[in-house]
């Protein structure tokens, strides 16, 4: 039986960019005050960013409940005896705990392995996509766990934020704290390091930010897969995609929108790039 792959909505994997591989997504929840939305299910990313930027209410997010994962495990257990769950960094959300907690709540016999990716967005997404393809080709659970652990250190996620305002308000600023409160308008470039948001450098404009992202990607010798994401400006992301396609004509570039859950912290005009380094 094929191992089934489960991840959360922070992987930024959608029906459009998954290339038809079988992945089950457990969504996180977005709260605008008392209004509750299921990430990408009851609120579209476009609608989310419209509200984020036009309304004076700062949304918050919550992880899926253990029950939500247990429901998914029970359903998949009808069709398989092995499930691999890969979640976003446990330092940014309790999703990993929920996924772990759900194992005890299962009613069906089925092996479940949960991996904390220690990353987010397409940093997680590219690894999940690779794992799903490997599963489809028949890789079994133990091998897959090894495969994912090998792949995670090779994924490099980097993101340009137009502002640190949202990240600071959400309290997830991590080691980027030192970038706050600059007297000039500066735009941070951030990454995920050991599961936490971590500063890389600062630029003064989006154009300079995209340049930095481009140079970052092209600094890798071997590239297996690439992803480019935006929060509100698809055209700016496309400019980066065009330049990268010219430099790497044989590499498909996965396009996505930064999930509202991450968008709560990223804010508008963010652009992200992810490299899955080749071996």
């Amino acid at each position, binding site marked *: 039986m094929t191992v089934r792959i489960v991840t959360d909505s922070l992987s930024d994997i959608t029906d459009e960019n998954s290339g038809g591989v079988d992945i089950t997504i457990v969504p996180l929840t977005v*709260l605008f*005050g*008392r209004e509750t939305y299921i990430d990408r299910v009851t609120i579209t990313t476009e609608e989310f960013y419209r509200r984020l930027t036009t309304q004076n209410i*700062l949304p918050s997010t*919550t*992880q899926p*409940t253990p029950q939500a994962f247990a429901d998914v495990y029970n359903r998949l257990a009808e069709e398989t005896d092995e499930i691999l769950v890969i979640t976003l960094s446990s330092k940014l959300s*309790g999703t990993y*705990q*929920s996924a772990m907690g759900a194992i005890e709540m299962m009613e069906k016999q089925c092996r479940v392995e949960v991996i904390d990716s220690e990353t987010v967005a397409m940093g997680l997404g590219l690894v999940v996509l690779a794992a799903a393809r490997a599963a489809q080709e028949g890789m079994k659970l133990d091998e897959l766990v090894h495969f994912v652990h090998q792949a995670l250190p090779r994924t490099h996620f980097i993101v340009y934020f137009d502002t640190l305002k949202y990240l*600071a*308000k*959400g*309290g*997830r*600023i991590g*080691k980027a*704290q*030192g970038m*706050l*409160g*600059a*007297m*000039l*308008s*500066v735009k941070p470039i951030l*990454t995920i*390091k050991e599961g936490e948001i*971590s*500063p*890389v*450098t*600062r*630029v*003064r*404009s989006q*154009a*300079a930010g995209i340049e930095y992202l481009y140079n970052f990607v092209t600094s890798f010798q071997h590239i297996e897969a690439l992803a480019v994401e935006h929060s509100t400006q698809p055209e700016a992301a496309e400019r980066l995609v065009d330049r990268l396609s010219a430099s790497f004509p044989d590499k498909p570039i996965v396009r996505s929108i930064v999930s509202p859950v991450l968008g709560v912290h990223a804010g508008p005009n963010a652009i992200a790039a992810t490299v899955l380094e080749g071996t």
Partner: protein
Amino acid sequence: MKQNEVITGQDFREMFACATAWLEKSASDIDALNVFPVPDGDTGTNMLLTMHSCMEEAYRAPDNSTSAIAQAIGKGALMGARGNSGVILSQILRGLAQDMAGKESLTGADFASALEEASRMAYKGLSNPVEGTILTVIKDAASAAQKLVSEGETSLISVMEAAVNAANESVANTPALLPILKESGVVDAGGQGLYTLLEGALHYLRGEAEQIQFRKPQMVASSVPMTARPSEMIAADEVPFGYCTEFMLKGQKLKPDKVRTKLEKKGESLIVVGDDTTVRIHIHTLDPGDIIHYAASLGTMHQISIRNMDEQHRDFLEMQKDKAPAVDIAIVAVVSGNGLAEVFSSLGVTAIVPGGQTMNPSTKDILHAIESTVSDKVIVLPNNKNIVLTAEQVTSLTNKDIEIVATETIPQGVAALLAFDFEADLTTNARLMRQAMPAVRSVEITRAVRSTKINGMKIKRKQAIGLLDGELVTVGDDTNSVLCDTLAKLDLDNKEIVTIYFGTDTEQTEAEQASIAIREQHPQLQVEVIRGDQPHYHYIVSVE
């Protein structure tokens, strides 16, 4: 609990229990923020112990009406208040209780009104209220709640949300009001504690009491940049803190106001709260015996605690050392003008050496700044052509690894600083910073000190002159016109950002006018105007 419009007594108690549990998760983080009034690192713990005393009483309340539980919480607060912030918190809780007397349940409007009373009580207990503390946070939370109610909102959860949001912003802004917070780069610990309690209450109202066991409160990030102090100012403060003295006084006709007046001159951070039969006293004094002696003449003393704050402070410094972010590479910059110093500090400079054109610092000044940093790898930004050589002398005088990134202007210094890569090592960073320098052009507008002829231009003494990357290129009588003429030498259509730092000789309005003129001609440009406070130079402008 969902869709909370109104809550009853039991929910009210559970809401407090949830708030206390939420505070408990971050008490030690709050301890670490504590720098005011005395950096003894116990704010979170004291607030938590105060809340524990409240909850004990709350479970002993005679009935389950909101009023009875609120009164019990207020009583528990007075009995168990610990430390400066704990006593102020107890005033807040007593204010809440007082306003809720006789209420069976709690609506949004009731809560807003109770917050106002809480704020009033908190200020009342202090002889010398200081802004930028828990006081400001309760005041801001109360006024936001009241505003929402006056706009017609009735539900408790909405009012609580407004209070939480306002408290968050208020905490983030505390360093703007209290300089010691700004210098230490922290927000107020007591304010953070109060915000955490309100947030915990909101979690309860949202029905998240179960989920929060997996989560942890976040510390509010300061919205104000930390100011790196000029290196010569970083000397140990040797003033003793004395003893934190606190106790409960029981008796008859105690008159808290009279007690407060009597003790006012005997120490710092005095708080006297309570009623005619029970008074809680908190004071930082060099002579606790004096205080105890006076109190003994009024009634009986209970829960007496006298702690040596100098000892506590030493322990706190040890704790801070463990918690402080490791500065791998320190950056020292030569800058003159408070505004520019703030710009450089806000971008991560560890130590500032005051100096610039016509007041070049000595090698010793720079060496002193380098030695004052905790890191053993230091990058130096001279920011002036005439200081580069002086800075280079330092390399042989210290055991630390030094890289001099030879910035010749302020804009080059900022560009180099921005290019700093948090992941890279010293040599790589020095290279990245040097590479970033040519990407920025520097324009400086100053006055000629004597009449002369340079580059075919006749210059009269005191005329405005414009320099482009250090070369004199324009002269004129009006500063703003000289600025525009100098900028015109650059291909502004292909530039993105112009940053204007105006000096002490220039009015902000004048600088704003220059900015408008530039934007009119080049609408694609992003123009920023920043107070630089630099002497001699009307404008220092970076174009990139």
